[in-house]
């Protein structure tokens, strides 16, 4: 009896490894999240001249087709909502590992937090397969790191809302399901009739001497990537940089008096996105000046 239980336990232990491995494999073949896009669309990304990175601001602020038509370059938006500089740096390392070196990276910064943002879970399928991610995850979530390494199936159960079911949708929709982004990697907030804007003014301080940001800059420099650091427009929020080297394009107050351009205080809507993209092209690329 004891032997049977032992055999069953060993079987289930290896079985969960096999299931998790298959799920990881299917995930990295999909385009559900940007984390999967880096692995499944390597060739597509290699063709791009400009890659936009950032959190939700980066995701909703650029009209890719407008950029491409005006500057005659190929652009992809790799921004992911609810991520910060830690994830952006990880993305850059993953790109470089895949030998994806775009001409320019537009890095949109909303916060420089030292904690891992919630959506790090979207990278869990590469746990154990990528040293940079393993180091990052182990540093911030040591217990979870070992738990998911020993029982990889747990990450799929724990985040079934964000990983397992989107993967199931993807299989149902013949590999076409993408979580809040289109073929160009962008997402658009609608123009709301009733405003959800707050009139409370807020200052956000960011420090240019941030360790992770510096690492990002160095990696770009080493790989001949032109880096443009940007703060996208906010409504009634102003970003102030400490120790600024004046290389940051701070547009946080660009539309301070244009509430009609915003979906909420942090994100542009469809109109704002178009106007901002035009302004961004005008200020940063000389073709239409």
């Amino acid at each position: 009896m004891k032997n049977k239980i032992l055999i069953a336990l060993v079987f289930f232990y290896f079985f969960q490894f096999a299931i998790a491995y298959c799920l990881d494999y299917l995930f990295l073949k999909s385009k559900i999240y940007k984390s999967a896009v880096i692995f499944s669309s390597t060739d597509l990304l290699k063709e791009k001249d400009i890659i936009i990175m950032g959190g939700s601001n980066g995701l909703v602020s650029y009209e890719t087709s407008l950029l491409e038509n005006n500057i005659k370059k190929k652009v992809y938006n790799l921004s992911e909502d609810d991520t910060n500089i830690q994830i952006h740096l990880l993305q850059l390392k993953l790109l470089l590992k895949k030998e994806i070196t775009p001409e320019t990276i537009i890095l949109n910064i909303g916060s420089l937090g030292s904690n891992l943002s919630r959506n790090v879970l979207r990278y869990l399928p590469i746990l154990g397969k990528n040293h940079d991610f393993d180091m990052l995850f182990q540093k911030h979530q040591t217990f979870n790191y070992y738990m998911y390494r020993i029982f990889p199936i747990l990450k799929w159960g724990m985040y079934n809302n964000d990983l397992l079911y989107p993967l199931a949708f993807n299989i149902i929709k013949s590999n076409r399901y993408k979580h809040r982004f289109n073929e160009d990697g962008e997402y658009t907030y609608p123009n709301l009739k009733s405003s959800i804007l707050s009139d409370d003014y807020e200052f956000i301080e960011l420090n240019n001497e941030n360790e992770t940001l510096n690492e990002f800059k160095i990696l770009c420099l080493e790989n001949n990537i032109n880096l443009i650091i940007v703060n996208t427009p906010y409504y009634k929020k102003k970003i102030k940089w400490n120790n600024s080297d004046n290389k940051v394009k701070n547009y946080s107050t660009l539309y301070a008096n244009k509430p009609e351009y915003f979906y909420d205080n942090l994100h542009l809507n469809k109109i704002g996105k178009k106007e901002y993209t035009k302004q961004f092209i005008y200020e940063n690329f000389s073709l239409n000046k």
Partner: protein
Amino acid sequence: MWDWRFTFLLLTSTLISYIGGYYLNNTNNDNYRKAIMRLFIFLSLSILLYFKYFNFFIESAISLLNSFGLETNQHTLEIILPVGISFYTFHGISYIMDIYYRRINPHNDIVAYSLFVAYFPLLVAGPIERASHLLPQLDIKRNFNLEVIKPALSLMFWGFFKKLVIADSAGMIVDDVFSNYQNFSSYSLIFGSILFTFQIYADFSGYSDIARGVSKLFGIELLLNFNFPYFAKNMQDFWSRWHISLSSFLNDYVFIPIALKFRDFGKRGIYIAVFFTFLISGIWHGAGWAFIFWGILHAIFYLPQFIFSNKKLKSLVVKTNTSTYGFNDFVNSTEVFLLVTLALIFFRLPGISDGFNFILEITKNWDRFSLNEIARTTTHIIVLTKSILGILIVFILEFILFKNNLQIENLLTKIWHYLCIAFLIFLLGSFENATQFIYFQF
């Protein structure tokens, strides 16, 4: 909240009831015994009253004075509600009452008695145990037995399923609806209220199942706290099946004594006893007018079946026959379910006015209907689907159990049953939205 200093509070509460029991046993004079019983119950309750209700009374008194135009300075204390205080206080009271009614003898072993008061599986959310039921089990030598593992695992897996699949999934939608109820249509508000009725059942009965399962591992049987309440045929039946440990406690120690006190008033005396019992039930749940109103509503829903019939009300809790459940019974159960849902709106919202506003919004917004209101993101769609699937699984299984007069530990007996439930928890559980049990706050 928990703080190490609250250990002294637990110790004080334990000592009060222990000493009370000792003095009760040392006299045969009925008047003297009654005085001792009242004194020690007052002492036990005073701790609960101070920590749970002090600020509520002060704030209520101030707003009452203000409404008469008398200006007062708001002066409340920053009192933290210690975890489990309602439950261990009631354990102590049950001990004193059981000795007073000579159901048990005082316990000599203070360590075993302390274990009864602070027994960990039920310290934070019950069931409220009776001294006459739990204390004798602590006295006997218990050996670990492989046979108890099966029912214990059944209960624990079932409890985790209810909590992680239904309560935590439904909670995300319910929180959305109740926190912004002004922005939802009537349909969404009704749906949200019904979902909360399922959520609170899954949350609370889930905890009770886990507590009973954990306890079984130690060879200790806890009282059954939920017995398929949403299949109840009337409100009396409902209260015989919902939070049974509290309703039977209130029946024995509040309803019956008050009913006896007012026996000369005939039926009106019984109605007064019902009203006070539900009032106390509301107050026990929390220091807020919304809980009190919830209790009053239940009294209002409970009484008509006796006012308009010749049925005699001898006990607050009387179960009905389960084997003959037909279509008429289903209609009655639905009626009970909707009344419970209506009362729970006040239970869920912070104030009585919020409850009425919520109901007003239900009556106003019939013209706009959109599924996107509730299922507005992919995550919401997933969570909603999971909770509905979970509700279907639980209620189909529980109906089978209810019809056959069985409990879950009689149904889930094989290892593959546990594996199936574990697999379903893995697939349908909402681990990321996991919240603490609703009844922890009481």
